[in-house]
């Protein structure tokens, strides 16, 4: 069985039709991980015992001949910011090197209830803070399409395992682009659902008003199947909304004739890589060929999204990361003689440079005298960004843009310039701030053969339309490539 071409649906079908067993699949995936992952570095922890236990359960179910659950036997990987009961959960931080979570994140337990098999936990930027995966407290991830390049971040490991075929699908979290940007860099599909669509219970908090769990897959349909299992109200997360979850796969495959697709001019200005521009313009033309009406529009506050994001995200992070004090769990430095000294030594030893930078920035913008000037100001601009999208979505059904301004860059290229690194998220952060869903799909390649991502943004809770448009583009582009 060729693991590289397995999709969510084909994996389940292979198990259901007894072409293979879930246990044999898990064997094959672990063999592939052991052979190929050392060069990539996408996994931090393998959860073999739990994977084989679930595989046995699925195989027994398959033997009964009963209808299998929707993700039965599908090997998936979990970004290491989601807690997994009794499996090491690190957020790629030395602070949590030996942390074994006492409970499962809701999205993790929902995937398992739907039959998915959890192969392991994927590498990421420490506490999901970064755009290249070079901020992992353990080791960087290499892009499987070109090992000298970054996979993007922060969910770089989860994008890389799908690109490398060392998992069929995976999940990540998106706070400023952390699903869509690595999906673009690694040439896979990454979906950020609406804020409140998927539960954050058990997602280690970075910026609570911006953190979105979501899936990666090889195809748009795979992300639809994953989302179906993950989505919906969770009593354990009061920010999940009580909005009915449609059957997403029913919308994947529907036509888009007559649909209005907005193209914001601010996303195609000077500075956009020419190959990315050409690729995404080609993708937009395919949507026009499929009968959609292309509507040029303006999102006038786009340029203010990154500064807004770095105030709000760091302010929330500084508060969320106050809990790592060496008392209840995680690393404790043995050096401190007093409680206060112990806190400081512990935090100095546990956190990496980028995490410290963001804690400092966030503490600064919240500190006395600066709250109004920075934090409140950014929240007001967040409203202006939301207003841009409200106005746009009064006219169009979805908005299409490049996912990133350039294809994947080299490891080390931006590591010393935090501001340059932050600008890698320039096209993705706004959707996080506004809370709307977005997907990145592979769309053509650069002259160097690197993947390019096209982003499709939709209205709140309208993932179905986003998936529908993405699927049309995916198929038109695939037909064109043949």
């Amino acid at each position: 069985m060729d693991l590289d071409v397995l999709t969510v649906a084909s994996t389940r079908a292979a198990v259901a039709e007894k072409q293979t067993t879930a246990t044999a699949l898990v064997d094959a995936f672990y063999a592939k991980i052991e052979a190929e992952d050392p060069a990539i570095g996408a996994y931090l922890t393998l959860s073999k015992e739990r994977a084989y236990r679930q595989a046995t359960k699925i195989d027994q179910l398959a033997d009964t001949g009963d209808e299998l659950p929707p993700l039965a036997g599908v090997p998936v990987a979990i970004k290491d910011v989601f807690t997994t009961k009794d499996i090491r959960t690190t957020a790629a931080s030395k602070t949590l090197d030996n942390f074994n979570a006492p409970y499962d994140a809701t999205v993790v337990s929902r995937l398992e209830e739907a039959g998915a098999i959890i192969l392991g936990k994927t590498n990421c930027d420490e506490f999901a803070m970064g755009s290249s995966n070079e901020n992992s407290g353990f080791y960087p991830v290499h892009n499987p399409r070109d090992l000298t390049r970054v996979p993007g971040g922060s969910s770089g490991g989860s994008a890389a395992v799908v690109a490398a075929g060392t998992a069929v699908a995976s999940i990540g979290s998106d706070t400023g682009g952390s699903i869509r940007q690595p999906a673009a860099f690694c040439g896979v599909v990454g979906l950020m659902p609406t804020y409140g669509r998927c539960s954050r219970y058990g997602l280690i908090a970075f910026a609570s008003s911006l953190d979105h769990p979501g899936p990666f897959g090889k195809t748009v349909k795979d992300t639809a199947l994953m989302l179906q299992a993950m989505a919906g109200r969770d009593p354990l997360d009061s920010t999940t909304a009580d909005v009915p979850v449609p059957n997403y796969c029913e919308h994947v495959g529907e036509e888009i004739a007559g649909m209005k697709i907005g193209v914001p001019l601010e996303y195609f200005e000077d500075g956009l890589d020419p190959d990315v521009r050409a690729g995404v313009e080609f993708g937009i033309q395919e949507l026009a060929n499929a009968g959609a009406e292309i509507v040029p529009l303006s999102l006038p506050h786009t340029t203010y999204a990154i500064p807004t994001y770095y105030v709000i995200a760091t302010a929330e992070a500084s508060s969320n990361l106050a809990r790592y004090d060496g008392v209840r769990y995680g690393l404790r430095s043995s050096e401190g003689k007093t409680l206060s000294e112990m806190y400081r030594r512990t935090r100095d030893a546990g956190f990496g440079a980028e995490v410290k930078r963001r804690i400092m920035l966030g503490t600064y913008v919240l500190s006395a005298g600066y709250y109004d000037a920075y934090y409140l100001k950014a929240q007001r601009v967040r409203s202006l960004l939301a207003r841009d999208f409200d106005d746009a979505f009064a006219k169009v059904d979805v908005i299409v843009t490049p996912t990133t301004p350039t294809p994947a860059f080299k490891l080390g290229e931006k590591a010393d310039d935090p501001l340059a690194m932050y600008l890698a998220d320039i096209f993705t952060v706004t959707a996080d701030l506004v809370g709307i869903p977005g997907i990145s799909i592979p769309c053509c390649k650069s002259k160097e053969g690197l993947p390019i991502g096209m982003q499709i943004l939709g209205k709140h809770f309208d993932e179905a339309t986003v998936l529908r448009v993405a699927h049309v583009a995916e198929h038109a582009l695939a037909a064109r490539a043949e």
Partner: protein
Amino acid sequence: MVSDKDVSYVADLAHLELTDEERTRMLKDLNSILGYIDRLNELDTSNVEPMEQVASRYGEREEEAGGFGYAMREDQPRPCLPRDEAMKNAPATDGTFFKVPKVIER
């Protein structure tokens, strides 16, 4: 402009100590990032409501009015994590409580 003094003050608030090298770097980085953030002042936001949460803009309306009904759950007692499980990751305990270095000097 952020000064050395500001870096020390903020590090103290954040319970970070930072080496001299880290402080020098932090001063440079914070000034560079805050300089970029200052462009927010180009915008007049005097009549704009702050958006703290997605729900604060989109969710608090009644569902019929186009809101998303971020429902509250019933406030009912449920079993919580058993003590031994909650404490199994602690760096130091006496079995009942978390142990920390002395808080009050005698």
